[in-house]
């Protein structure tokens, strides 16, 4: 079973609000001092799903694709160290300021260039823009069925059985391959690459494809051609008016809180 996994490098989504800064004029996030970018947290889970499917199936190739700056090679290396086979970095100066929609276009072209695949795995959303549109987008562009927010995948003959998380429960669906599946955090923890695997991964190839290599024109990418132009980016203001409940013992504080809540007619 040949699987393509799409992984994105993003600023650490657990960056505390106190370290998070925006350059409002440039409409860009200012990288937080000392906090390195990470792989979008859902994407290693997509890689984990790919590894388990390949191993259950007894063979096949896992190709990892990332569109991003030169540093996004680290996101690919991470997937390779987990056990994926090959990597492709989509890197081009024209990709600066690329939006999620244009990313779907570029990824679709790269996926076609990779060629043979039975399954494309992605994360449910990237935790920078929190949009969750690329899986559906690639599905529309390539004419493939899409199953989103998956917590488990099982392969049968020519089809997959996927368990999805819904707003109010779970759903089991069946989808013929080739298909796109996006993975959610309910899938569980991905494996952590061991030192030996990290060394092995260093020998695996990462190709670099430019916009021209995948046939993406300069008028298809960049902020000036955005499908959903960004007009403003800022940090919302939070005002603190907290009243810390005083008391000699935790029990006393609890009683005071109950009284204050009653006085404020909140309970």
């Amino acid at each position, binding site marked *: 079973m040949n699987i393509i996994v799409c992984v994105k490098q993003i600023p650490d989504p657990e960056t505390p609000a106190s370290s998070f800064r925006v350059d409002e004029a440039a409409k860009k996030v200012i990288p937080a001092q000392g906090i390195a970018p990470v792989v979008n947290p859902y994407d290693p889970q997509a890689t984990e799903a790919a590894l388990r499917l390949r191993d259950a199936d007894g063979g096949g190739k896992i190709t990892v694709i990332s569109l991003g700056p030169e540093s996004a090679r680290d996101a690919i290396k991470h997937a390779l160290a987990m056990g994926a086979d090959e990597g492709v970095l989509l890197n081009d100066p024209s990709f600066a300021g690329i939006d999620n929609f244009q990313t779907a276009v570029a990824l679709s072209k790269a996926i076609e260039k990779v060629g043979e695949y039975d399954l494309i795995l992605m994360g449910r959303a990237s935790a920078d823009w*929190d*949009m969750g549109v690329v899986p*559906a*987008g690639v599905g529309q562009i390539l004419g493939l069925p899409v199953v989103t927010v998956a917590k488990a995948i099982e392969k049968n003959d020519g089809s997959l059985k996927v368990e999805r998380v819904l707003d109010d429960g779970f759903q089991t669906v069946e989808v013929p391959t080739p298909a796109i599946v996006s993975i959610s955090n309910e899938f569980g923890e991905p494996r952590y690459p061991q030192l030996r695997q990290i060394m092995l991964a260093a020998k695996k190839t990462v190709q670099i494809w430019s916009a021209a290599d995948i046939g993406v024109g300069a008028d298809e990418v960049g902020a000036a051609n955005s499908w959903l132009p960004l007009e403003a980016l800022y940090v919302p203001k939070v005002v603190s008016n907290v009243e810390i409940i005083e008391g000699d013992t935790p029990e006393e*504080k609890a009683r005071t809180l109950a009284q204050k809540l009653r006085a404020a007619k909140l309970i």
Partner: protein
Amino acid sequence: MPGILVIAETNEDGVAPISFELLGAARELSGQGAGDVAALIAGSEAQAKELLAHGADSVYTANGTLAGQPADALLPAAEAALQQSGADVVLMGQTSLGRDLGPALAFRLKTGVSMDTVELKLEGGRLRATRSAYGGNARAEHTWKSNPQVVTLKAKSYDPLEADAGRSGNVTAIDAAGESKVKVLGTEKAESTGIRLEDAAIVIAGGRGLGDASAFESLEQLAKSLPNAAVGASRAACDLGWYPPALQVGLTGKTVSPNLYVAIAISGASQHMAGMAGSKNIVSINKDADSNMVKVSKFAIIDDYKKVLPALIEAVKKLS
């Protein structure tokens, strides 16, 4: 005046509440000059009338069997309604359906979609959408390069209008139905006891700092001694298997805006805040006075919840 198309949804109880919130938002935009409000529902004539009463000017009905099907089954009906209404704005909910249908429709029509949108306004006849990004650490405002301007709206961002049974309008059946390659084998509802988290006036929420699953029993006990209260959890607590994911509050969980939100051992990461920042009053019980949740609270107890909670349950019981 091109107008707005609202994609309404149903659940086992009838028209889903998000539909009325969408109509509330649509009427506001209509008031700013966005044109008439059409709605599409995979449902009955009676449900269509409910949409009219809540603010739709006209309704398209698609076959009720499409409800609960994968989004691509509804795609042709959405496209037909869009064409017939001439709308250049499409509003749907950030729900299991909207999460899929929004981007599918947008890419099919080669236009953008603003996901999980919290605010909309019309500027020079074009839509401007506000949404949170970077897990809630940032706000972003967007416009669209082309039409239609597709939006998924975050729950509780707009208030529904009072129903007015006197409102009337055309109801037109659309018989476009799509085939999805995705076949639904089964759907399992999350167990729900008592009142829905989204509807509760009081939410008692627990986080990783609780230390174990059994602590949620105390949270449930507190909720039981209060009127109209429900229990929720942070993702950290859900990921640890302490509480069901359907009761997770936050960016990737439920959006709640109760009158009172009691956060017990929750730090207040931006992604959690994204689901409860609309709460009218927040109370924290946390060991850490510097935590984000404490900062946004009205009242906070800085102490070990294990000592505070039993006393709080007692004190609350004595009040009533």
